[in-house]
């Protein structure tokens, strides 16, 4: 089978172990992320793992690509530690404030700049945004097919893949020819822990950085200007507990409880 040129898209997200420190800025409608460590989006580790497995089976090259500030280099270092060949960071102040469409445009432009690609693999969605839109949008910008919620892939021919995609109530198997974009879920594999030599790769391999200028992007399509969607309002959900004592015999208590839960919309009406 011919070696494949694979690009994996990764996203820096706030470490979920510190989410208790996250808050919303009511003015900018953005998350306050100061002081929260940045990690690689967990599903992107599955994406890298799948790419590395394919490379081990067929040969080729695995490149990771990400859009973000310079702190994203730490996330790319983890990709190097896992064993990828190359890492590219798309970083420019002009990219800031992008919604999924403007993000996908920049990433797709970055992918084109890396050369011909056989396969683009991404995590199906991110831990923080969870829109699951960037994968399909990247594919559209590249003009190639996309498959989402992929939980297993098999190569049936040299240039054809069978992907099992999870859908509501079951799964469907879809055949696609390269080049193709696959958005994978956590079922697809168990991401490797970087080998100890990864500590060397992570610190010795250099990532490439492209700015807006390097990529020759359409300025109308990037950052805030290129984002057709915006967040009009954000609010914190304030939960308050209330206590209530229900008395009576056990059967009566149960009946009353069910009624109250129905009245509060917790249980469906029969």
């Amino acid at each position: 089978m011919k070696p494949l040129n694979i690009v994996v898209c990764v996203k820096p997200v706030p470490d979920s172990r510190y989410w208790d420190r996250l808050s919303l800025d009511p003015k900018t409608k953005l998350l306050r992320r100061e002081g929260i460590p940045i990690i690689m989006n967990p599903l992107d580790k599955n994406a890298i793992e799948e790419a590395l497995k394919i490379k081990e089976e067929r040969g080729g090259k695995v490149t990771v690509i990400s859009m973000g500030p310079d702190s994203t280099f730490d996330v790319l270092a983890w990709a190097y530690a896992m064993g990828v060949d190359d890492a590219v960071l798309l970083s420019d102040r002009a990219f800031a404030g992008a919604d999924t469409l403007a993000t996908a445009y920049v990433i797709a432009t970055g992918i084109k700049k890396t050369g011909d690609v056989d396969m683009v693999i991404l995590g199906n969605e991110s831990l923080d945004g969870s829109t699951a839109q960037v994968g399909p949008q990247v594919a559209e910008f590249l003009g190639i097919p996309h498959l989402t919620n992929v939980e297993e892939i098999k190569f049936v021919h040299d240039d054809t893949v069978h992907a099992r995609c999870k859908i509501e109530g079951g799964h469907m198997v879809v055949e696609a020819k390269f080049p193709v974009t696959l958005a994978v879920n956590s079922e697809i594999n168990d991401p490797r822990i970087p080998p100890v030599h990864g500590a060397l790769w992570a610190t010795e391999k250099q990532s490439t950085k492209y700015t807006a200028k390097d990529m020759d992007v359409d300025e109308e399509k990037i950052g805030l200007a290129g984002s057709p969607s915006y967040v009009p309002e954000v609010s914190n959900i304030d939960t308050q507990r209330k206590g209530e004592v229900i008395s009576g015999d056990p059967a009566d208590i149960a009946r009353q409880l069910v009624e109250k839960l129905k009245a509060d919309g917790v249980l469906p009406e029969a």
Partner: protein
Amino acid sequence: MPFELSPAEEMARKIAREYCEKYIIPRRKELMTNDQDMWDEEAHRQTRAGLHLHIVPREEGGTGIGYVASCITIEELCAAWPDLAFAIYGEFAYYFAKATGGDVYDKYMPGILKGDILATPAITEPSGGSDMLGLQAQAKKVDGGWVLNGRKVFQSEGHYCDFVMTLFKTGDPNDPKTPGSRSLTAFIVDKEFDGFRVGRLENTLGRKSDLTEFIFDNVFVPDNFVVGGEKGVGRGIAPVFSAVGDIGRLTICGMLNGISAGSYRTAMMYAKERHLYGRPISELQMIQARIAKMVVDLEATRALTYRAAWLRTKGIRADAEQATAKNFAEQAAIRIAEHCVKIHGGYGVLEDYMPHHYYRHVPMRFGAGGTEESLGIMIANAAFRNEANPDLSHNSMETAGWWGRLEW
């Protein structure tokens, strides 16, 4: 001296922590019930993941990042579970193979790099370990090798090891031809050698079936398994004590610091979650005082350990620094683990909670790598030999090398 970890050392910590989060932390409940299966699984998993390779130079197949990365890795493993650090025995295997060289290196090195081979030193006898000249085990010269007879005890995880480096008497310390320590020779003994067997497994304060006894019953050891070869006869102390210092003592520091780091992390998390008087106990000043004391001890013990390890990475012998770090690490660990237990209140002593396990594992490390007393002698000797250099720079410690130098 740089007061920061190198990027590679930082990454080594992240990789070790990722390993723990995948394999150890989710299974702590099993470990709490002393599940032997978990130990059997873990015995080679850590070395197959290469966690012992930081002390192996790159040209030999390791990462070559050094002893600080080794200490950090062991620290993370023991923060996850206080004595689940089989990487140590992979490090011993490399150190012994390297020290012996020749056929021994060729035989074991491929397996060591793959992580299939573990080893441990076997020095202490039922009568003790610090008084070298009092050792009883005897080796007799025969054609083509030596025949060993004796017993060695208190080897942690010895039953998982593939070979040992052991110290036997090959002469009489009172004989002018083999005076004092010249009566001792170090041997490599494979577990497959006839007459070598694992004896009793001792239950300890830490867990069951931990410490091992080795029995040498007319074990024939070929000449090429003598550490140092022909010249190594009567010069067994140097390699054995270099190994006990460089690997044994530094990794014990890593284990103790792991207990300290794990206790600290556990206490911090609990202090933020546990509410009293309508607020988290982390807001109570008496709890904050305990946390502050834990931080001071943790920072100090890491600084001493990392410095000793850094010296060793530089190729500088650091016997007294290793001893200093170990003596402090055990005192720090017992204090930090105690704070952790006390912050948890009644839950601190329950078997289902981590503070109990951190606390009870500290004494397991009191004797390992040298008792506080024997290391105290080493530290004092180094200090008095260097009165001209009271600042205790690394040069002072190098000249004080108590156990002699391992020539590689």
